[in-house]
């Protein structure tokens, strides 16, 4: 509200005019009745001191399915994962239309229903899938079985096209011939063996891979349904799967997180109670009507302002404290082009199990991919809220030492260390990437050029007292041999660059 000043002054020797009092009192009372504006409020002291109601800025919505492929204990991994005591896996059906991801045993859909005003959603989603041959469940999927898996975000039934992990249109631009190769036959025909073959390049083709999607979206008033959806894009013949052989895909760890940045929230509080009775003609002036119930009443209100006294949307960023706590970031970007090889470490210890089979991702010369919040750690007892951790690690190569094989699995996850020095390996964050893009002609052809996305969301209320004191969060690497031997073979994992970042939204609890 613009600045206002006393419209009239009372003067000695003048007859008391009720209008003088009334206009003056109403100017103040009107301002206190929900009209204190951004110009009326000093920003600096408010920003430094004021409290914010829980979830006043943001709220969060989170669903995670922690599902174990059960690789370690199984003699044949694909049998082993069925019925393990974690969250159910989700079968990714052969369907070329976008489908919700639903639990195999319960049918529960990975979705969030969020009631909003005119807000902004920031949507994070992650999924880990593994594919195997239909006809032979013990047979790890062949690289010859491109599964063309696509994931996308969907809000209120509408797929956000620009989040799809692949080509939105299929078939994509037809194969093209880039060059004339010399004839390898006795004819003068071009050697079409080397025509570029881009069929099936419409979706993720790894047998085992993880993906993460991030998208911002402004939403209107109402309740909104947010889903992570998938589809199996058909080949050019519009048949799903490859050559009638086909693969079955299953999603294990999967997560959906929505941060709602509040916009035009509706007012749910009471009305301001600033009432000053009018002074009437003929009324005797009293201490009550010229002071106690007017000036003094408004003074007391001004000295103890409530939200109801302040105009809607009056507080700008200059007035408001940050509710972000414990932001940190770290990265490894080796100066050398040589990736860091992990070769002499033990096998994958199991889903969410700590052990020597985990090695902290590092740059090869002593710098680990980890964050410590500047060395002071995170105190989630004093700063309760939702912690979000995001990381990427470049996967340069995963292979047997001497051969290329898709049965080699690189595993990555996040882990945190608490106040007692106990490290917790987060099974729900585990992702698995198989060897792919091998070259049988030139062994060791590198890189495979992949990247592993990681994500952890945790409500501090779900942590134990000790775990609320976090000293370190790190990216871990492990390996597994998915071949028939099911032992930790001489699988070699090479990584290179990576980053990890975190932030805590105080007083936000999904």
């Amino acid at each position, binding site marked *: 509200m613009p*600045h206002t*000043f006393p419209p009239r002054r*009372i003067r*000695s020797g003048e007859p008391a005019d009720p209008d003088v009092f009334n206009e003056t009192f109403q100017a*103040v009372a009107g301002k206190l009745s929900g009209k204190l504006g*951004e110009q009326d*409020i000093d920003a600096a*002291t*408010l920003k430094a001191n*004021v409290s*914010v*109601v829980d979830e*006043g800025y943001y709220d969060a919505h989170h669903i995670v399915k922690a599902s174990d492929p059960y690789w370690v204990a199984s003699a044949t991994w694909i049998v082993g994962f069925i019925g393990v005591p974690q969250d159910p896996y989700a079968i990714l059906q052969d369907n070329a239309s976008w489908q919700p991801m639903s639990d195999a045993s319960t049918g529960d859909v990975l979705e969030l229903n969020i009631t909003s005003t005119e807000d*902004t*959603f920031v949507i994070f989603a992650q999924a880990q899938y593994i594919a195997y041959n239909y006809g032979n469940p013990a047979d790890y999927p062949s690289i*010859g079985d491109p599964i063309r898996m696509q994931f996308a975000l969907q809000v209120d039934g509408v797929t956000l096209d*620009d*989040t*799809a992990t692949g*080509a*939105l*249109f299929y078939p*994509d631009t037809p194969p093209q011939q*880039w*060059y004339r*190769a010399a004839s*390898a036959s006795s004819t003068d025909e071009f050697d079409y*063996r*080397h025509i570029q073959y881009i069929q099936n*390049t419409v979706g*993720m*083709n790894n047998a085992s891979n993880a993906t*993460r999607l*991030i*998208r*911002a979206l402004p939403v209107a008033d109402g309740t909104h349904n947010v889903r992570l959806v998938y589809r199996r894009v058909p080949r050019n013949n519009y048949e799903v799967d490859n050559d009638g052989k086909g693969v079955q895909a299953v999603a294990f760890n999967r997560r959906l997180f929505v*941060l709602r940045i509040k916009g035009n*929230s509706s007012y749910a509080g009471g009305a301001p109670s600033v009432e000053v009775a009018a002074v009437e003609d003929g009324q005797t002036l009293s*201490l009550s009507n*010229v*002071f106690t119930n007017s*000036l*003094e009443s*408004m*003074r007391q209100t*001004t*000295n103890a302002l409530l939200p109801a006294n302040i*105009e809607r949307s009056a507080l*700008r960023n200059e007035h408001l404290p940050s509710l*972000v706590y414990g*932001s940190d970031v770290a990265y490894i970007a080796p100066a050398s082009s040589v990736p860091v090889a992990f070769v002499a470490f033990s096998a994958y210890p199991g889903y969410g199990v700590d052990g020597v089979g985990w090695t902290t991702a590092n740059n090869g010369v002593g710098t680990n991919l980890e964050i410590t919040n500047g060395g002071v750690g995170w105190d989630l007892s004093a700063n309760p809220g939702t912690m979000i951790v995001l990381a*990427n690690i*470049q996967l340069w190569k995963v292979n047997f030492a001497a051969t290329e094989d898709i049965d080699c699995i690189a595993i990555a996850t996040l882990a945190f260390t608490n106040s007692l020095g106990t490290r917790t390996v987060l099974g729900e964050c585990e992702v698995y990437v198989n060897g792919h893009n091998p*070259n049988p*002609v030139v062994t060791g052809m590198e890189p495979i*050029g*992949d990247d592993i996305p990681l994500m952890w969301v945790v409500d501090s209320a779900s942590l134990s007292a000790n775990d609320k004191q976090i000293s370190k969060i790190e990216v871990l690497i492990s390996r597994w041999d998915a071949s028939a031997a099911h032992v930790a073979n001489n699988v070699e994992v090479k990584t290179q*660059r990576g*980053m990890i*970042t975190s932030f805590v939204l105080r007083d936000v609890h999904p």
Partner: protein
Amino acid sequence: MPDITFDYIPTTGAVLQPDGFNRDLYQQTSGKSLFETLNGNVTYPNLNAAFEVESHLIRPGHTGIARSDGRVFSADYFSDLWAGLNNDFYTPVGGACLSFRVPYDMSYALFSASVFLTVWRQFGPPDPSAGDPFDTRLDAPNIRIQMFYGDTNGIAYTRRELPQTVFFDNNGAAPDADVGMVEQYTCHHYNLLHAKIAGKSAPNQQLTKGYATFGLAVYVSQNLNGQNPAGTDYQLNLILSGADDARPDSYYKGVQRVRTYVRNATVMGLL
């Protein structure tokens, strides 16, 4: 501003003093009058002890921003074919970049660039005399992607080297008479991140008020197939090959390509 304490308090039976009454309404001295406080000098001590900022008091967009942009059509990025055009630059990928206004300093900002891509990364010059166009296999330079911030600042930790195109038949077998240069096994989806945080140093320093641009760029280096571009063989290969085909042999070595499919850039900034 401290709580208000009036200079003048009338009493019953006494004559009302206009000057005192007027000063209680307004005077320049802080903490003495209603209008002086309410006209821009309301401070934290004036708030009720139980005061908490509620959502409806907040101007929309003043606790955080989030923007996204994306494209769904495929777009190809090529290397330079000719030695004289060996311009090895990162090229921003349309649809995976975003320019936006930053209305105030952000305590935390997350930049996300997502892209699905395949690559055509030829390696080895053809050797027609041997009947095998790929008889001599030499490493081609890596094609790269990398996030950038601003006009020139590449973010090294987001750099990713893309795979070579594999030589398989459609069933994953070793090369045979049906060999193709199979791109379907180089399909990758990337979701790369960059963060800017108050109090951190470059490249993670605070995202401050103003305008910002970030995104994903591709670097498709010229494929010299391991040859010295100043060498005789390399120069010869730039000569048109003959009457049966007017296209230059340098096509053999020049082409490298990234095909970007659906892509997206998202930024989230928090007060």
